[in-house]
């Protein structure tokens, strides 16, 4: 455990992770990725701006209650940011963030509406929101079908975990359906039936949707891919959100799963300069628990990307405030000013790994670029070019949603200071 005294001379970055429970399969590579990148910074650079990072994991088991407990236990140690790593936990922490003045970084998960920085000054969800993801998927479908006009009359299914996380994309898909004349069908999968999806897939067989967007998690994803293969659903029309893009998820479908698609916003594999540092400074020093041969797995890289965001925000905050040891308020400034340019990407050794990224005071997500990855049978490949989500379409929806969120809770604290 971390003592308050330790937290004085370092920057305390708690990681709410889950390496146990029903979702451990997805949680472990992410946790290791997050952990290893920060450790690498400590080992290689002695931290950020000369200040060591104090990394502490707290096990949530992907359970909201446990997550909130974790939050309570780390809160006292002056964390600069919390990564709830669960949409459910994020929803619980959103109202508290403003009170406790600790930024919540829900990287590409959580409440899409939180991208509205005016209403949610303490919540960040870069690089994209779930609504962006769904819109990018529709854009991709339109591309394949040969234009949005060809989507009219088509049926798009949303196969989702029956939880706040799974339901996030519904409003945007329905709005898009109205706009482009396709039909949306929902296929909820209750958590206890994650591995028992046969009825859902029977429904899919009945409805014969043209596309399926998979917003699943944990054991739900491999099961979905396997069922898709079994039901002769064309796997290249099954597109997962970025959380359905685990290597194990796709591998479960066997050879016939080749062609399965998933959104992504970072590269896969280990062919990047920064990865060599992770191997040298972390794995070779025995500081990682992740198996060497799986380095470069999609979700491992996802964890790294998450930590990269944390690190960049800290670095930015240090630059802005001139302080070495920063606190939550400083961190928020850093997050709001984050602008990772191509140059910076090169500096970090992350070329080809990620697209440039920017967050602003009003826009806490940035609606950054994504691409569609495709499973080649034993590794992910980049299936399309980087593309922008339908920001113009999504952004007003987000602002509306943020408004009604605040309205539902009379007395929701407005942003105290104007955006620059």
């Amino acid at each position, binding site marked *: 455990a971390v003592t308050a005294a330790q937290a004085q001379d370092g920057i305390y970055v708690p990681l709410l992770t889950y390496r146990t429970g029903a979702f451990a399969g997805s949680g472990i590579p992410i946790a290791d990725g997050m952990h290893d990148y920060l450790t690498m910074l400590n080992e290689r650079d002695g931290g950020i701006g000369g200040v060591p990072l104090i990394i502490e*994991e707290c096990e949530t088991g992907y359970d909201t209650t446990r997550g909130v407990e974790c939050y309570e236990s780390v809160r*006292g140690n002056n964390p600069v940011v919390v990564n709830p790593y669960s949409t459910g936990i994020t929803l619980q922490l959103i109202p508290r963030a403003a009170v406790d003045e600790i930024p919540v970084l829900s990287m590409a998960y959580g409440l899409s*509406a939180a991208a509205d920085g005016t209403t949610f000054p303490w919540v960040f969800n870069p690089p994209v929101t779930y609504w962006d993801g769904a819109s990018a998927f529709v854009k991709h479908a339109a591309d394949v079908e040969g234009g949005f006009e060809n989507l009219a009359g088509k049926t798009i299914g949303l196969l989702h975990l029956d939880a*706040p996380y799974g339901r996030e994309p519904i409003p945007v898909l329905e709005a898009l359906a109205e706009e482009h004349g396709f039909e949306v069908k929902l296929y909820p999968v209750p958590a206890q039936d994650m591995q028992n999806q046969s009825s859902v897939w029977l429904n899919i067989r009945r409805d014969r949707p043209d596309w399926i967007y998979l917003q699943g998690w944990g054991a739900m994803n491999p099961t979905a891919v396997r069922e898709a293969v079994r039901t002769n659903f064309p796997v290249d029309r099954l597109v997962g959100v970025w959380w359905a893009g685990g290597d194990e998820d796709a591998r479960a479908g066997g050879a016939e799963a080749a062609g399965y698609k998933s959104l992504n916003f970072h590269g896969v594999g280990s062919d990047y300069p920064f990865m060599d540092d992770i191997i040298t400074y972390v794995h070779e020093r025995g500081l990682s628990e992740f198996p060497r041969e799986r380095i470069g797995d999609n979700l491992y890289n996802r964890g790294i990307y998450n930590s990269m965001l944390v690190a960049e925000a800290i670095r930015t905050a240090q630059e802005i405030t001139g302080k070495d040891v920063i606190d939550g308020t400083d961190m928020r400034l850093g997050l709001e000013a984050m602008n990772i340019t191509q140059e910076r990407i090169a500096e970090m050794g992350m070329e080809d790994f990620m697209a440039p990224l920017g967050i602003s005071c009003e826009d806490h997500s940035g609606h950054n670029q994504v691409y569609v990855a495709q499973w080649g049978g034993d590794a992910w490949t980049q299936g399309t070019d980087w593309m922008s989500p339908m920001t113009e379409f999504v952004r007003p929806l987000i602002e509306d949603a943020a408004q009604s969120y605040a309205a539902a809770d009379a007395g929701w604290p407005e942003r105290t200071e104007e955006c620059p």
Partner: protein
Amino acid sequence: MIYREAGQFKSSYAADMAVFPLKQDRIGILVIILLAYSMAFFGSTFMLQAVLIPFLIFALAAIGLNMLVGYTGLLSLGTGAFMGVGAYACYKLMTIFPEVNVVIWILVSGFFSAGIGILFGLPSLRIKGFYLAVATLAAQFFLQWTFNRVPWLVNYNVSGAIEAPRRTLFDVQIVGAAATPQARYIVVLTLVILLTWIASNIVHGRIGRQWMAIRDMDIAAELMGIRPFKAKLMAFAVSSYYCGVAGAMMVFLWYGGAEYNVFNIDQSFEILFMVIIGGLGSLIGSFFGAALIFMLPIAMGALLPAIFEPLGIRVGSETIEHLRFMILGAMIIFFLIVEPHGLARLWQIVKQKLRVWPFPY
């Protein structure tokens, strides 16, 4: 013979029937209550928010379940869902009638879960034992599904979660993110004391005796004029009321928000552990059980690294988690073996020993 009752004569039946006939007990309870209130001023935020508030809320839910399982002998695995009914009912009431004080709504919301409890208690008239237990799972899963699928319950919130709106009591905010743990703790403590007192009155009176009669020998009870129909449904109603209130308190005075998953089957099981480890048919046991089951994992989370780190063993958070599971499992078995009648009985034995001390029997 520190703990002795000799010399305390009761001159009326009323005195003999008091819940705490012994003077030592009465003084003890008073001291405990005073201490509990003083924690609001001395306890750290973490202590209040992460330990005491949930402990009290779980104890209340455990009391509720204990009235059903421990006193009436009806095994229910739907506690989580009944807590959920309370929480969702409270949320609806709070948002539809924002002008009424939230504490009132918390207490009223229990009636909704009592109603639902009666509905799902109906099969108990014919179904017994584990059959009933599994049948109550129908309530668990059905209600959970309802929380999830009826958007009206969450005021059409897209995420499907409920958020605690801001509410005050005597101008002090007690619900909402800005409510201080101190304020919430005092409200929770007061409600729990009040409801525990009522529970104790119920179980020591006619209704409680009828429940226990049904539990111990339902046929004989019926032959003595106790209507199983009424007694069992009453047990379901009262028990669900308590669970419902606990659920509402959990969401609005502790978490500050919740999704349907909070009221899942694990929650039901956890409360059941508390009841059984604490002691079936014992109110004080419910507190012991809640303390042990809720605090044990927290304590272990803190203790295990403290044990391993000096030994130079690097343990990841997941290893701790695994060990925690193992130890929790082992502890459950251990306590059951040491005293199948729960911590409450252990407590009694201790008192018994104190009474005859220094003699062994």
